[in-house]
């Protein structure tokens, strides 16, 4: 019997607003403990929350980008549990009437395309952080009250690869929207997974576990793969899955039981009386929708149609907003989309990845006009593709433009027939045997001679011209 994994993801995304969700405190990451706090986010007696409008704006933008229906009525609820990092011992969240729902996200994993439905998107505040020391546990309230968006998928995901694709696609969209930096290591994107197995073909769901503590996209994939294997083993051995929360241990590459359902909380949700519910007008929602940027999926399709890129190339170039923008800016100045795409996806991306360049700053490292100039030089045969690689590397590291580099390094292609003829004559003298073969019409032999000329010119010769000149000399035609 084969088993089918059924996975739903709960993703928490920290919105990149300048102040916290319900007070004026800053949201800079990595500040010294308890320096980004005020009576409101520390939950002191008597304080009241006030909703950050930017938070709502970002939340609506995200919900719309995920094809959700945004509610016309905005209401917050209190979720109660006692923990020292939660100073009010309740979290301002949304319960029965979330900001948005009924969304969908298209993904592609293992060459299969599918749609993952989004159950709900709701707004809430983050908790603080406990720091455990030998002298006892301390609380850092800096993160307290940070604006979070919880995005919950339907259990439409059937493999770890799909979960990975879902997260990647979600991250691309959030980055396009400029609402979050989506850095899992900094905790600005967190993911919990609900997972169960069922015999293939069965519609009823199996008993699920919730997996937490995954700190990277890779961690999510590894944890899910592990948990799928673990549950499958239990079922194959005739056992039953315990409904529980399990923690992913990165070092041991295993999940461990944290708490069972019997210990689950009663959160005693009720409407937050300190925040008055209000209406979001259809006009506001329509305007927000209008203002959405072109999202990766649409951009990809457009790139395929407009620039005749392959689906793969289009998806790579469109995945990052800044790379896509850079690409289009370059193409606008010199319309050779396929060539430009190749250079970007190859040498440029390599450099970016190796040197961990922020792609937002690509234009500073390699101004668009420099790349355009280089492509032009290839196009008009001033340099060969091989030389271009060297030129590009120099441009990326030195910041100089292509013409300067070519001049300084003397890399210009030799298209001058007179200069080339001397070298060709030299090769003909050295390679009498091959010359005979050329004369009998062997193309391979001709290519060898061209190669010899290229070698002698250290790649600077224009191969087409060399080819023509040799043919002319040996065969008397062009």
């Amino acid at each position, binding site marked *: 019997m084969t088993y089918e994994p059924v996975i739903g993801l709960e993703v928490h995304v920290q919105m990149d607003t300048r102040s916290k969700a319900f007070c004026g405190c800053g949201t800079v990451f990595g500040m010294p403990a308890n320096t980004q706090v005020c*009576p409101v986010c*520390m*939950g*002191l*007696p*008597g*304080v*009241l*929350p*006030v*909703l950050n409008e930017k938070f709502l704006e970002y939340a609506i933008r995200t919900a719309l980008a995920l094809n959700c229906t945004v509610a016309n009525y905005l209401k917050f609820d*209190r979720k*109660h549990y*006692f923990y*020292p990092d939660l*100073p*009010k*011992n*309740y979290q301002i969240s949304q319960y029965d009437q979330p900001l948005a729902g009924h969304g969908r996200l298209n993904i592609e994993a293992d060459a299969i395309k599918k749609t993952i439905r989004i159950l709900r998107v709701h707004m809430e505040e983050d908790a603080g952080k406990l720091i455990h020391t030998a*002298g*006892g*546990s301390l*609380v850092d309230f800096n993160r307290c009250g940070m604006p979070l968006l919880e995005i919950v998928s339907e259990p439409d995901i059937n493999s770890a690869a799909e979960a990975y694709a879902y997260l990647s696609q979600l991250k691309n969209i959030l980055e396009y929207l400029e609402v979050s930096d989506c850095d899992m290591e900094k905790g600005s994107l967190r993911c919990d997974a609900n997972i169960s197995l069922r015999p293939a073909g069965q519609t009823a769901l199996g008993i699920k576990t919730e997996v937490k503590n995954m700190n990277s996209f890779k961690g999510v994939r590894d944890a899910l793969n592990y948990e799928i294997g673990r549950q499958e083993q239990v079922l194959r051995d005739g056992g039953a899955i315990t409904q529980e929360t399990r923690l992913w241990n990165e070092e041991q590459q295993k999940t461990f039981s944290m708490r069972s359902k019997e210990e689950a909380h*009663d*959160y*005693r*949700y*009720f409407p937050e*009386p*300190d*925040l*008055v519910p209000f209406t979001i007008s259809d006009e506001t929602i329509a305007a927000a929708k209008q203002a959405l940027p072109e999202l990766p999926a649409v951009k990809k399709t457009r790139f395929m149609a407009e620039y005749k890129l392959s689906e793969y190339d289009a998806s790579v170039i469109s995945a990052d907003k800044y790379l896509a923008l850079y690409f289009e800016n370059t193409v606008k100045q010199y319309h050779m989309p396929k060539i430009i795409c190749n250079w970007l996806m190859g040498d440029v991306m390599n450099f970016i990845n190796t040197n961990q360049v922020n792609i937002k700053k690509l234009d500073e490292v390699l101004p668009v006009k420099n790349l355009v100039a280089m492509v032009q030089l290839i196009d008009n045969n001033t340099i060969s593709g091989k030389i271009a690689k060297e030129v590009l590397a120099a441009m990326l590291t030195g910041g100089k433009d292509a013409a300067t580099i070519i001049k300084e390094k003397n890399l210009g292609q030799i298209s001058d027939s007179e200069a080339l003829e001397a070298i060709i004559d030299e090769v003909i003298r050295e390679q009498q045997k091959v010359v005979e073969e050329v004369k009998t019409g062997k193309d391979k032999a001709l290519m060898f001679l061209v190669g010899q000329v290229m070698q002698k010119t250290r790649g600077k010769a224009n191969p087409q011209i060399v080819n023509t000149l040799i043919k002319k000399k040996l065969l008397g035609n062009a």
Partner: protein
Amino acid sequence: MELTQYSAYELSTMVGKGDIYPVDIAAAYLKRIAALDKNIHAFVHCDPEAVLKKAEKIKTGRLRGVPIAIKDNFCVKGQPTTCGSKILKDFRPPYNATVIEKLEQEGAIILGKVNMDEFAFGSSCETSAYGPTHNPWDITRAPGGSSGGSAAAVAARFAPWALGSDTGGSIRQPASLCGVVGLKPTYGRVSRYGLIAFASSLDQIGPLTLDVRDAALLSSVISGYDPKDSTSVNIPVPDYLQLLGENVKGLKIGIPKEYFITGIEDGVKNAVMQAIEVFRKLGAQIEEINLPHTEYAVATYYIVAPSEASSNLARFDGVQYGLRVTKGEKVSDSGLIDMYMKTRGEGFGQEALRRIILGTYSLSSGYYDAYYLKALKVRTKIGEDFKKAFARVDCIMTPTSPTGAFKLGERTDDPLAMYLSDIFTISANLAGIPALSIPCGFTPENLPVGLQILGKPFDEQTLFNAAHAYQQSTNWHRRKPAMAQK
């Protein structure tokens, strides 16, 4: 005449003219408190030296040099703020409530913090962890509550006026029992920022004063939209004092028959009926009206208020501030629950624990719909009753409390009897409408009786005008308890 015999308005006028100095006023009140508060126990915190220092420095403001007593659930920067609870014993907030900021901007002098039922849970000031306050009219009796310290301080002339908070009658009932004026403004009229919350959807801050003129003056100062309180409403604040009228000719007054029920003392009923007669003579039209859902108000309140309270009081856990009770020196992970339980178990008094448990129960999954949600529906009905009534009348008059001041200890073992003290005041909180209590006579035992005047949302002016007209033609508000005669 002693400075402590003047109203706040009179004091501010005299300071304005330069007839007296702020520091002299402060000194007079401090002297009186030092001499007499041992019998009343209105104050839980008063630092005479700091008060005098401040009074010496004060130079400007509409209320320049006028002292004020503050209920101990308002955050005053650096001053003890206990809410009458052991759990906040040494708590000093690092910030000021918005109303405190407004008072200081106008030059008012904060005399100190006055007693209250613990977290405002009570109607007698007896649930305070710091001992009860006594009623200045009869020190064997309770001053009412929860703003009992505020009402007693004003009645005893320890302060010309005070701030209180009202969740189900906590300003009006003690005002009634102590013979002073008390207003619960419309919900949203005064910022709650810095008022330690009891029930957020019901709490409202208001003045306790010697007469209506002072109530109008103080209301003008403390009211208004506050960007720090999302529930405060952005409607301009009238200058209540400037607009204060005394003509009630043609004023339509509704008398709800549901408020004149069995259980109401004859002395109270008679005084209120006579007060209504005064209004008739002044030219008002008296009409009988119906508020049919009145009988459900107390039950509804005791679901809504404790539910919100259980949530608001969750933060008192021994982690950041206030009392912490632990087994050992350091709190380990396993000791965390123990710390929570011991801190809250020892820090909260009986009534607080009772309400936390009530509220926790009402909000529990499986019970929420039957209790909390149902209560919200009834709350809406109660609000609709008033809406209908106010389509016909300009204001509604009822007794404030069914009885005069009761004996200390009389109701402490009977929570239900205590809860019924607020039977006439709770509806105004549930409906969010303004309600004023003014002295309107005395029971045969010489205990003050209060007349409650309820109005339309944000129509405090009508209440002030009606009450001011009444005070222009009666003298009940000028009567003083024996201990305040000179």
